[in-house]
């Protein structure tokens, strides 16, 4: 069965996650092999997901880890251990 571009767009996320069932996957694949627009949409979406997941997009501020552990140290020593409520 031939499917239209609009139907392929509904399956972009499932296609990228590899969660489409075999029948739909085959239809989408055939469409992608012949449609340069859908193929470019799929490529761009995949590319954008790879870029946004890259660690460099959201960088940790300098000294973050040290400040975090220093605050934990301060609070942990002031608190009782977490196994029960404070008296």
């Amino acid at each position, binding site marked *: 069965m031939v499917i239209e571009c609009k139907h392929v767009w*509904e399956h972009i996320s*499932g296609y990228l996650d590899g969660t489409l069932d075999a029948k739909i996957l085959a239809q989408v694949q055939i469409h992608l092999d012949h449609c340069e627009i859908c193929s470019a*949409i799929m490529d*761009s979406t995949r590319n954008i*997901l790879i*870029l*946004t997941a890259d660690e460099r*997009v*959201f960088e940790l501020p300098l000294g973050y880890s040290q400040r*975090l552990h220093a605050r934990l140290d301060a609070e942990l020593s002031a608190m009782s251990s977490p196994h029960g409520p404070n008296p």
Partner: protein
Amino acid sequence: MIKTAELRDEAQLIASILSGEAHLFHELIRPYERSVYVMALSFLKNEADAEDAAQEAFLKAYRNLASFRSEAKFGTWLISITLNEARGRLRKAKAVVLQSLDEEPDAEGHISPALLRDWREIPSETLERQEIRSLLQAAVGQLPQMYHEIFLLRDVEELSITEAAEVLQITESSVKVRLHRARIMLQKILAPQLRHMTPQKYSQRRRWFPWL
């Protein structure tokens, strides 16, 4: 993601912390320092607020460690705490953009992607450029909150569909629908911007026709 052996170690660490070895909490959270900060930053959009929220989330995790159920993953539990902390701060700042009433969360609505004739792969090296990083951060930041949340959990924090459903307290099919919409929204925002940002030296496909 965290392997089975590491999970077992985590369970042991948690047991030791609960029996009084509080200092081991430092070790327990080390693998999650980044995830927690990124979640907070993405919501609060300000480094100082994000850092404070991240610290607070870790402290809440410590205070409530006894209520952590061992059948859940510590990482997923921690992300839930961070999400609640970030949501709470947003509410306080009255910065939550109200969901439009006509936008039903899980409706079968169609979102169309940006149409392109071709796509030149943008390699990860371009992320060395601040302008590209800013573009990506801004695009993720402008997603409506429920799409923003699911995108971060699945595509940035790499939680499974089941874990994301657990954190957000929604069904797995809602996770899939929201994630799909989030990804298409990002493609729609970013594809037109990014295709003009790729310097010539990064182009991988040759242009055969100079007038195209």
